[in-house]
Structures are given as C-alpha cells and as structure tokens.
C-alpha cells in the first residue's frame, strides 16, 4: 500500500485514520457536484454520459489492467473518502468544482500533501490555524451528528441522491426495466413490417368507394360534406392511407375526411394527450429521477416530448400515406381476381379478400309458390292491410310476385341514382362516347323499373291492378316516390291516370281511413301518410301544371271509375278532389272566354255531377272521433279544406245546400272550440279550420251564434 493510484508521488500515511482525517479536512465538494451533475444528466432518455461527466468508475476506469490487478484496490480509503465528502457538503460549496477528475484528485492529493506535512508524525491531533482541527473522537461525533441532524431540503436530496447504493440500485432497476421491454425487439425487419402492412391494406383498398363502401361514403356525404363530393372521394384515399397498421379505422384516421383543419388539429392533440396519459413507455416519461424534478420542469419535459411525438406521428403518417399511395397504384395496375387458376392445374382456387369474403352456407329453396302459408290473415298482416287480395287462387304467390317487382324497381332506382351521381363527372360534349353510354344506361335502367310498374295500362283484367298492389306495400310507396323523379312527363301522366282509375282499390282507400281502432289504425294512418307524402305530391304537382283538358279528363275518369260517395271518406281522395277543384277554378279564371269554351263547360258539368253525388252525405266526410278522446287540431283539416274548395266553385243555390248540410257540423265545432276543457291552441286551430270553409262562403265563425 505504498503507492498511490495516480502518479504515486507522495505516499500517504499508513495510518488510515490519519489519512481519513486529512481527507476530511481537505475534501471539497467537487466530486459531489460532479456526481449530482452526472446523475441529472444520466437519466436523460437513457443516453450515455459524455466521457468527461462520467465519474463513477473513475478509480478504475483509466487504469491499465496491470495497474488494477497488481495493486490491491484500497477500498477502505475510497470509502472514507466518500463518507468524508458526504459529511461536509456545506463547507466547501464555494470552491469551483474542477471538471477534470485528475485535476480534482491531484488537488486532493495536493491538499493531502499540505495537510500531511504539518501533521507528519503527529498522532491524532494537529493544530492548524486556518482549519478547525479536532480529535478523532470529536471527528467521529461530528460526522455522526451531521448525519443525524435534520438537513435542509436541498442537502437532504443531495444526500439521498449522492448515496452510491441508491444510485446504483436505481440505475440497475431502470436498466432491468428497459431490458425487459426491449429483450425481444427487432424480430422483424422494416421490410417485413412493410410487407405485412401492404398485404393488409391491399385487402381493404377500394377503388370505387361508392361500390364497396357505399353506406359509409354516402353517410359522410349526406351528413358532413363541407367541400363537396369530389373532395370527399379524394380524401377517401387518404383516409384509407391513414388507417393504422392492422387495417383498423380509427378516430385519428377519420379526421382528414372531415376536411376541417382545426378539427384535425384538436383531434390529433386529444389523441396525443391520451397517449401521454396512457401509454407510459419505460424510461421516457416518469422515470424515477424525474419525479424529483419540480412540477414545472416535468411539465416542460412532457410538453417537449409531446411535441416530439407529434412530429413523429406526423412524419410516420406521411410515410404510411406514401406507402399506401404506392400500394394503390400497384393495385390499380393489376386488378385482383377472385379466382386463381394455375397453369396446368385443374380447377380454380378462390382468393379470399374484402371483395370476395368467405360465404356463409346458403340453403337453396325451390322458387315458385310451392310453399303455401295459409290465408292472408287479418288486417294487421305486415305489408299493408288486405294486400293479399291479389289473385284469389294463390294469394301468396301474388304477394311474392309483387315484392319481386318492388325489388326490381328498387334496383332500377339505385342504378339511376348512381348514374345521376356519375353524371357530374361526364364531359359536357353531347356526342362523346361515354356520354352516350351513360344515356343508354340511364334509359335502360329507367325502362326496367318502369316496366315493372305496368302503369301503362290503367285498366286491366287483373284485380287489383299491379301498380295498386305495388303501392299497397310501404316500400312500394317509397320506391315509386323515388322513381318519379326520373320519369318523363308522359310517364307521370300515365302513372297518375292509373292511380286515379283505380283509386278505390288503393289500400289507403279501401275501407275508408276511419274504420279502424288501435294498432291497425296506427298502421293505416302511417300508410296513408306515406302515400300522401310520397306518391301524391308528384301526381298533384303534375296536375297543378296540366291543362284544363287533362284535368277534366282525369276528373271524369275519377268519378266514372270510383264510387265517389264512398271513396270521399278517405283522406287521399279528399286531397285529390280538392286539388282538382282548385286547379279547375284557377284555370277557369285564366280562360279568355270563360263562358264559351268547351272545357269550362265540361268542368262545370263535372262539378255538378260531383256535387249531386255528394249531396246528403257530406257529414260523412268528417272523421269520427271516438268518445272521450281529445280533439286534435288537424284531424279534420282536409275535410274543411275540401269543403272550402267545393264552396269556392259553387253556385248560390249549391252554396245554400252546402250550408244546410254542414250546419250541424259547424255548430258542433264552434261549440267545441268554446268548451273550457279544450286547450286554447287546439280550439284556435279548430276555429281556423272552420273558418276555411266559412270564409269561402263569405261567412265567419264569429257570426255563428250558438
């Protein structure tokens, strides 16, 4: 133990106690400061410390093997050194810490030299004017007392941090954690990963979102289109590109399709906040040392990390987007086929993809009416009341046939709508081949749908008319309602004619709208509403534009084919008649010579005919409210409107007759409106309705005296 480690110029005393004392006296805080710095820096993302700051193994680091093994390591001395430094952090804080460990140790050695000098040969005591010298016992006591006195906060943390055991322990823990997480990393190369991603994304890719991804695409168009269809389609590609690696559809990936930058920003921000909260990657956030930073520092660190991660995410997304673009282009070049037949092999191998998924087992049933399901059933049968009254011989078959026809109509409608969507993309030139192709396709689809309705022959032997049967179903009403947008005027006229000719047999008119109770009534009401909202408007709109001749023709047809007195109880009939009468009156006024034209004469004839057939049964127009129900304001609105229309075209004598018949009803309504039990807005509505009729006559409800 004669040589010292570094340089070995001065042999310290063999007496360890004296040595320890000397070093205690002379120790600086420099090593401590270095340790602090190195600790703070070392936990920065697990990077390695720069050479000059790594002071942990300084005793052995630069030494040769020979030096270490030939000489025994002086554990005791180094322990004492450390302890001494530990015990006196405050005394020497003002001294500037030398960075170089050699320098530091040399300064120690130097001071040792200095202190050794005057104490050479001295025992446990020495006197130095500039330093407080103590006996060994006092020295020990001092160390112990300093250890046990409550130190200041900084000193305490310094003490805790500086304890080599803790440092080493924590370091090992961290390394162990990292090792556990990264033990099985890098199993797949980057190329492998890209390969898998390519396969998965190519399964999902759709060239034509309208075909494969219909619901989602249309839904987004209808619910949130800010920039319009084309841009949505473009963004669909990006949307697929931003799907995560396993082909999932996530919220973050959805954001570009909303095509609103601020929203994308907030979504990304939220995503990252969530990720910083939830995904605690080892060592990145919340490592043990950083817990001891102040709160502000930790926040800054996290923000910095979030920023780094965000840019990481963005760049990785950009990378994936490029990747997907490459895949898309490749997929476009080579269309995927559902069946692969190798050369020379017998048979096809079916390739399962998104477009050709594994089929569930399908049990084939033989078509045709071999299955008889009993009688059509009561009024509450699904599919419209009394719709089963088709062919008396085989009602079920008729029903199926009608349903099939409706589906054909729907197919046509869908094709037409798709073509209309594509129309926007066609070039404007009329004789461009694609335009002509489009026109042909459009016409074909329309014809197909139209043929199913069989509306061209208003009067057939078959009862009820196929169109009527189609309209008996709710989805038939919807299908027709959607088809009429695409029909020509002639076709609409044919449709209207057919409906009118067979008005009686329509399901909404069958037994009158007012004969039901309970659930059946609700269903009937629903069907009637559907009819009124979907089918009637086109017919009526057509009427509103038609000439008097056509109107007369239709009017005549209506009255001829239908039992007016009976059918007039139904709402659709009332609405229809009201529109006809109104239109007639308007056209009459437009005529240059009102008295002489044939059409006007005809119209007047028709009106009289109508009036006569309704005479005596006007009270039946009104719906019968079951006793005890509260009156709803709109329940007889259509009836009053009809009466108003009737009165508007009536002659004086006819008006008298009208009043006479409607008197009771009017009185009843006015009385009801004045009834204290009826809420104010309901009675007001009732009065409004009654006034519709009375005003047409030149009267008013207030004139009525009860």
């Amino acid at each position, binding site marked *: 133990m004669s040589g010292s480690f570094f340089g070995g110029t001065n042999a310290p005393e063999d007496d360890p106690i004296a040595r320890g004392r000397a070093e205690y006296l002379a120790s600086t805080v420099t090593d401590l400061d270095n340790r602090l710095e190195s600790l703070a820096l070392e936990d920065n993302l697990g990077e390695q410390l720069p050479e000059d700051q790594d002071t942990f193994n300084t005793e052995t680091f630069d030494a040769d093997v020979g030096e270490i093994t030939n000489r025994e390591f002086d554990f005791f001395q180094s322990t004492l050194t450390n302890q001494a430094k530990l015990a006196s952090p405050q005394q020497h804080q003002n001294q500037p810490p030398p960075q170089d460990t050699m320098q530091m140790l040399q300064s120690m050695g130097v001071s040792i030299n200095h202190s050794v000098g005057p104490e050479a040969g001295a025992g446990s005591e020495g006197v130095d004017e500039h330093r407080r010298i103590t006996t060994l016992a006092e020295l020990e006591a001092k160390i112990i007392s300093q250890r046990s006195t409550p130190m200041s906060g900084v000193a305490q943390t310094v003490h805790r941090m500086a304890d080599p055991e803790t440092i080493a322990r924590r370091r090992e823990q961290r390394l162990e954690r990292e090792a556990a997480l990264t033990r099985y990393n890098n199993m797949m190369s980057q190329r492998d990963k890209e390969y898998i991603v390519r396969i998965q994304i190519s*399964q*999902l890719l759709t060239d034509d979102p309208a*075909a*494969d*991804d*219909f*619901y*989602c*695409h*249309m*839904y*987004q168009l*209808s*619910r949130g289109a800010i920039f319009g269809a084309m841009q949505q389609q473009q963004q669909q590609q990006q949307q697929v590109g931003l799907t*995560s690696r*396993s*082909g*999932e*559809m*996530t*919220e973050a990936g*959805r954001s570009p399709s909303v095509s609103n930058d601020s929203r994308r920003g907030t979504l990304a921000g939220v995503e990252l906040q969530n990720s910083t909260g*939830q995904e605690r990657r080892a060592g990145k956030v919340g490592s043990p040392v950083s817990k001891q930073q102040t709160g502000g520092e930790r926040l800054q660190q996290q923000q910095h990390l979030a920023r780094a991660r965000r840019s990481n995410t963005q760049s990785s997304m950009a990378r994936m987007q490029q990747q997907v673009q490459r895949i898309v282009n490749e997929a476009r070049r080579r269309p995927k086929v559902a069946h692969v037949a190798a050369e020379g092999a017998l048979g096809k191998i079916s390739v399962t993809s*998104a*477009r050709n*998924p594994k089929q569930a087992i399908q049990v084939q049933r033989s078509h045709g009416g071999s299955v008889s399901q009993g009688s059509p059933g009561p009024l509450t049968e699904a599919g419209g009341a009394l719709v089963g009254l088709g062919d008396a011989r085989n009602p079920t078959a008729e029903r199926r046939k009608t349903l099939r026809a409706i*589906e054909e109509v*729907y*197919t046509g409608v*869908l094709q037409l709508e798709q073509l209309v969507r594509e129309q926007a993309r066609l070039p404007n030139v009329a004789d461009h081949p694609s335009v002509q192709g489009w026109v042909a396709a459009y016409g074909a689809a329309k014809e197909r749908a139209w043929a199913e309705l069989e509306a061209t022959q208003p009067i057939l032997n078959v009862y009820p008319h196929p169109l009527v049967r189609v309209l008996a179903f709710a*989805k038939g009403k*919807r299908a027709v309602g959607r088809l009429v947008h695409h029909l020509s005027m002639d076709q609409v006229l044919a449709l209207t004619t057919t409906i009118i000719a067979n008005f009686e047999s329509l399901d909404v008119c069958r037994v009158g709208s007012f004969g039901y109770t309970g659930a059946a009534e609700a269903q009937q009401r629903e069907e009637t509403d559907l009819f009124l909202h979907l089918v009637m408007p086109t017919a009526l709109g057509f009427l509103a534009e038609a000439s008097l001749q056509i109107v007369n023709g239709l009017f005549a047809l209506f009255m001829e084919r239908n039992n007016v007195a009976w059918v007039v109880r139904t709402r659709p009939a009332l609405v229809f008649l009201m529109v006809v009468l109104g239109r007639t009156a308007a056209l009459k006024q437009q005529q240059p010579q009102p008295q002489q034209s044939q059409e006007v004469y005809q119209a007047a004839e028709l009106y009289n005919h109508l009036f006569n057939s309704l005479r005596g049964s006007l009270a039946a127009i009104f719906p019968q409210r079951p006793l005890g129900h509260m009156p709803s304001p709109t329940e007889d609105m259509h009836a009053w409107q009809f009466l108003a229309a009737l009165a508007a075209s009536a002659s004086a004598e006819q008006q008298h007759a009208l009043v006479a018949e409607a008197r009771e009803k009017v009185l009843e309504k006015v009385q009801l409106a004045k009834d204290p039990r009826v809420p104010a807005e309901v009675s007001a509505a009732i009065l409004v309705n009654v006034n519709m009729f009375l005003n047409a006559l030149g009267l008013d409800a207030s004139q009525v005296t009860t």
Partner: protein
Amino acid sequence: MLFYSFFKTQVGQQVTVELKNDLAIQGVLESVDQFLNIKLKEIKVVDSERYPHMMAVKNCFIRGSVVRYVQLSPQSVDTALLQDAARREAQSTQQP
C-alpha cells in the same frame, strides 16, 4: 363490407356491446376493422357487480367473433340509406 362500412360511421358513438358470454360493455367505439373487431374506450360494464375484475379497465379490444349484439342509438343510423346499401350488397353478391 356492409357491416364494416356501417360501423365506420359509428366510430365515436356510444355503443353497448353484448358478448356471447353475456358480458355487456358500454363504451365509445374507437375503431373497427374488416373482421369487425371492436375497440372501445372509456368503458363501463353494464352489470358491474358481477364482473369486479373489470373495474379498472378503461379500454378494451374485442374480437369480432365473440360479439353477439351491438346496441346503437337510432339517430346515428340512416335507415333508408342502409336499406339501399343492403340492396346493393345483395345484388353484388348474387351476381356471379
């Protein structure tokens, strides 16, 4: 692809997934994939007393094959559009 397309529009909505083992989980639909695997976040088990082990779970990934029902809110569904989409799907699968 119809259901995948449908669930894509439900992303971000509150749904209740009932599994084949009778566990019902309510949560916000985070993502769905082509196998109808479902990722939920902010989950809450419907009958939480029976499943205490799920108390601390906040997100989950559910394999598509174990789902029995997915309960949605009606306002988020466009039924007419869904009918159209179903018709198209039926046509395209019948064509070959």
